[in-house]
């Protein structure tokens, strides 16, 4: 079956604008994770969902960031009033369940550039 897909692959926006990043997890995977990776760094956790609910949003940097997963499959990461410091690759991953022993499958990422 298909892997995790993310759209768009690249997004260029201007400071102050609103953006939405989409993640389609592997079918049947109940856990979905968002990470952010800045150049030369390892990914940093943002939020994860078990089903429709956000189980842990402790990594969201501030209230400009919000994520939803209304039907327990596709998720959207929303960033309001973007800032240049938001520029990064946003990675999505899914796993069969939230069990720590489950492998996480990563999508190719969305590269966000805020001018």
């Amino acid at each position, binding site marked *: 079956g298909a892997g995790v897909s993310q759209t768009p692959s690249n997004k260029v926006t201007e400071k102050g604008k609103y953006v939405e990043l989409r993640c389609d997890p592997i079918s049947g995977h109940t*856990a979905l*994770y968002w990470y952010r990776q800045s150049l030369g760094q390892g990914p940093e956790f943002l939020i*994860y969902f078990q089903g429709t609910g956000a189980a*842990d949003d402790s990594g969201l940097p501030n209230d400009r960031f919000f994520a939803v997963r209304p039907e327990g499959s596709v998720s959207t990461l929303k960033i309001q009033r973007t800032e240049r410091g938001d520029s990064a*690759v946003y990675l999505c991953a899914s796993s069969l369940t*939230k*069990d*720590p022993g489950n492998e996480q*499958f990563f999508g190719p990422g969305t590269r966000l550039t805020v001018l």
Partner: protein
Amino acid sequence: SQQGEEDPQALSIQEGENATMNCSYKTSINNLQWYRQNSGRGLVHLILIRSNEREKHSGRLRVTLDTSKKSSSLLITASRAADTASYFCATITIYNQGGKLIFGQGTELSVKP
């Protein structure tokens, strides 16, 4: 925040040589995982080692875990040019119920043909 550190930050070797990367972490873990990343995009899971395991093998990969030192190493034997990539360790701490991964800074491996 990052859980730990990896060293070296960059490693350059010749094809056929072995590559060893080290990872240290700070808090007690459920498990530790190694990932590979090409071209700064998607990550590929390589291997998972649980906190009660000391060594694990998968093909040319060998991972060790020393929970007393809070450290792990990844050994790639008989390296190939195609192994060129960034390698990250990631931990899941015992304080999390779910699969929240905390990544290190990564080691950039270059294998020259």
